[in-house]
């Protein structure tokens, strides 16, 4: 970790248009995000010598990952010293961990990390075919085979099982959990790129349609088309570029239990427990030093779990911690998901949290900017078996 801390940094970020059914190819979105990030950093394509992406090209699920490292390399005819794209990583931002290690090792100078998704366009183009790979009557293999045959088709079901356990063990309520969604929507109202910007009340949340108890519609994120880029550079190179480098004070990606939704040792938390504990092992900073938290909210409960396990409150105390919503508001003790999270800004799938953490540390949040020049941010991604967390500081 010390090598990453001393040698790697974020030098720029970029993002394509974010929207529903944009009708653009995944590669077009990716190139938009890459050009945006290069301009942000002050780099040109010829400077890039590495690519790292999650989960790599995936043609099984329409639009889930329409672009891999080779497609981007070819589109810009990049000369690379290293590249990688794989879903076998500690969460979506595992691609950033790989890039940090590659930079710290001296293998590469500037790595484009990206996540591209265009499910809403891809699904709309299926024209009436079953919009899933796990529809009735098909077969399932791999890690999902012990879940899907029991009609547990969706991550909504899997996360709901954990949420229900947490409710049971700790007395957490929907009234409390709803603050994750209400807070996200309030912040999204200040983010021009967010998908859902009209405010919702706790009553709207409580009255929304149940998806898989105790999770309702507003507990689930919104699929979008988007590409998000983080550029990882050698620290000394980054210092010569446009932006103040953002450094990795610590990274947590530990995974110490069963790699399984159903066999995990504690069903009231997730793999993020271990990734959170590992984050604090490599640093003298404490949760109280964190100025802004961008924590994965593919489902609201995942975000609550991150808050607890990262130590912003104790295990099981998350419900009481977020009750009323003031602690996690933009002017609260730990501003949370300042862009609106995936719940309201859209499922940029993990990368959006690091993008927003950088935006806040660079003071570029516009109307949603956290006051008093935040210096320390946490970004995290992943739920269930996936998790990585990052403690980011300005150089």
């Amino acid at each position, binding site marked *: 970790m010390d090598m990453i801390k001393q040698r790697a940094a974020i030098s720029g970020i970029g993002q394509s248009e974010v929207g529903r059914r944009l009708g653009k190819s995944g590669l077009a979105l990716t190139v938009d995000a890459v050009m945006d990030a290069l301009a942000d950093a002050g780099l040109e394509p010829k400077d890039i010598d590495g690519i790292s992406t999650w989960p790599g090209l995936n043609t099984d699920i329409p639009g889930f990952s329409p672009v891999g490292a080779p497609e981007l390399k070819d589109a810009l005819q990049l000369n690379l010293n290293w590249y990688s794209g794989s879903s076998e990583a500690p969460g979506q931002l595992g691609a950033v961990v790989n890039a940090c290690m590659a930079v710290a090792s001296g293998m590469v100078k500037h790595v484009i990390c990206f996540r591209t998704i265009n499910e809403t366009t891809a699904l709309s183009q299926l024209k009436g075919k079953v919009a*899933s790979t796990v529809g*009735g009557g098909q077969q399932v293999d791999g890690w999902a085979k012990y879940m899907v045959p029991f009609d*547990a088709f969706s991550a909504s*079901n899997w996360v709901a099982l954990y949420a229900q356990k947490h409710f049971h063990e700790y007395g957490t309520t929907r009234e409390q959990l709803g603050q994750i969604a209400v807070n996200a929507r309030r912040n999204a109202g200040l983010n021009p790129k967010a998908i859902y910007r009209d405010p919702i009340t706790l009553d709207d949340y409580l009255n929304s349609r149940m998806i898989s108890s105790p999770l309702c519609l507003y507990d689930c994120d919104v699929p979008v088309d988007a590409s998000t880029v983080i550029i990882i550079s050698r620290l000394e190179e980054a210092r010569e570029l446009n932006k103040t480098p953002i450094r990795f004070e610590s990274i947590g990606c530990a995974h110490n239990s069963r790699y399984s*939704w159903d066999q995990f040792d504690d069903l009231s938390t997730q793999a993020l427990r271990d990734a959170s504990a590992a984050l604090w092992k490599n640093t003298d900073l404490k949760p109280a030093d964190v100025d802004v938290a961008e924590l994965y909210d593919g489902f609201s409960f995942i975000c609550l779990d991150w808050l607890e396990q990262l130590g912003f409150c104790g295990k099981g105390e998350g419900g009481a911690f977020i009750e009323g919503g003031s602690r996690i508001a933009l002017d609260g003790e730990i501003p949370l998901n300042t862009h609106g999270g995936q719940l309201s800004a859209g499922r940029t799938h993990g990368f959006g949290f690091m993008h927003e953490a950088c935006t806040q540390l660079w003071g570029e949040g516009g109307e949603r900017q956290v006051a008093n020049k935040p210096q320390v941010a946490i970004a995290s991604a992943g739920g269930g078996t996936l998790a990585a967390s990052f403690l980011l500081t300005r150089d």
Partner: protein
Amino acid sequence: MIANRTMPVVDPSEAHFWCGGKEGRLLISRCQSCSEYIHPTGPICPACLSREIKPEAVSGKAVISTFTINYQAWFPDLEVPYVVAIVELEEQPSVRLMTNIVGCDLESVHIGMKVRVIFKQVDEIFLPLFEPEVTA
């Protein structure tokens, strides 16, 4: 529930689990050296590294560790609502099965509820589902 369930690709090493219901038995892999149950099965016991792993019948009694009621019709022919649960086996609670709870009102399902296995046949496969354990 869906009439036409998505079914697992069954590797020969795990056929006992998916097909044991044909004889009315829930078969779980067990280390013959240290007696640990291993689920899903594997080629080695992670506790003692023995390779002697054999399927053994368990009682089929379990406790609901957690559950959710699914209301969303993910497909047009999916009949909702229904219960998805994770149950812990009586013999070794760390062995858990994701399953459906059937044969009772949705409202009666709760964490800690005692259940027992029943099997739903789909061609060669017998899915282990659970229903309330009726006590005398």
